[in-house]
């Protein structure tokens, strides 16, 4: 799931779902409809009419409607208000199970910390910190947010 909005403005929410159903065998239209309804996205709305938060929700609804072993979400909460963040995060949490992996790239550590199983810090193309979130917190005696400040401030 790319960071940038990438759905053409002329498509409706329904057509976005239909496009993905056409090209991805593991895409579930029913799951998409349920997610869109939960995120309060009307099927008839054009992408050009969606706010940035609504478009972020649509991107996630599309990604989460696929039965994929690996979901890669690049900055899923960018440009999203507080309420929409809660909806997106709860959708991510529900989507995660023992049969898949969700890889999230994000700078909003304070928001993401509570949903993470493992963390990886990348700096200048190198892994500088990696491990299970609980173990990292215990080892360093700090929250992930504090570690983030420490690693990236220097």
């Amino acid at each position, binding site marked *: 799931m*790319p960071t940038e*909005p*990438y759905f*053409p403005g002329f498509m409706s929410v329904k057509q976005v779902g239909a*496009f993905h159903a*056409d090209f991805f065998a593991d895409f579930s239209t029913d799951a998409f409809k349920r997610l869109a309804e939960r995120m309060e996205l009307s099927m008839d709305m054009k992408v050009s009419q969606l706010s940035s938060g609504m478009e972020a929700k649509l991107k996630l609804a599309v990604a989460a409607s696929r039965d994929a072993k690996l979901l890669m979400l690049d900055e899923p909460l960018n440009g999203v208000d507080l309420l929409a963040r809660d909806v997106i995060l709860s959708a991510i949490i529900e989507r995660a199970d023992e049969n898949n992996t969700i890889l999230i790239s994000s700078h909003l550590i304070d928001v993401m910390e509570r949903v993470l199983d493992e963390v990886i810090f990348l700096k200048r193309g190198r892994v500088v910190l990696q491990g299970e979130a609980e173990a990292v917190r215990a080892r360093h005696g700090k929250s992930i947010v504090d570690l983030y400040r420490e690693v990236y401030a220097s």
Partner: protein
Amino acid sequence: MMKLLKYELQRRRTLLPGAAIGMLFIEGAALYGIYRGGNWNTLAIAMTMLLAVGGLLLPMLDAVTKLYADYKQKQGYLLFLTPQGGYRILLAKTVFGALEIAASMLLICGCLALSAALLDRFQYGAATALLSSVGAQMGDALTTGMLFTFVGLAALQMIAQMCVALLAVTVSRAMVQSNRYNWLISLAMYFALAVGINMVNGVLLVAFGFVGDVMRLIRDESHALRMLGKYFAISAGTYAVWAAACTAVSGRLAGRSIDL
């Protein structure tokens, strides 16, 4: 493939009807000029030329701008993130463009037939007289053959030119994207390949005995139809191979070398 074509059609849900309506308006102006006659025939001629040129150029411009938008704008992710591959995506764009060109040619021919009918009605059978004169000199079969050959080769050549243009755009995004003059390189490449295809076609026609056949034709016109068929096949084959090669190279570059 059908799903890709469906998506291409969806993208043009306002352009295609708009273009068709525009062409009908232009034809309407041409018909008005024919109806009025006299100096108004100039309007008819100008509108007919606009219809023919615009109708043939629009599909090519449309194909190129849509592909460029897919490469340049974020909406390109939607297409290139599908598990389709560069070859299939470019082939779908070529097929759709070819269908647009064919539809445009049909519309143009229909408009020309309508203009001819009106010319006969309001200008004392001028169209019929012209066609009869040509038919008397060359024979009805040959006249019809030349008409179909001209229309068919024009369509095939436009399709080949479109494939060349798509390749030029793909090369500019795949290989020289960082060069500030990539648009110029793309344009130069287009003109070089567009001229090249006609040069290759000319060489092949000569190689298959075109000059000798023309000399024989002057002495004996009975083989004209067979000769027409022969050279139509050669040119059609040249354009088809050129179009296929350009599409294949574009597909490979789009699949491997495009950085969205």
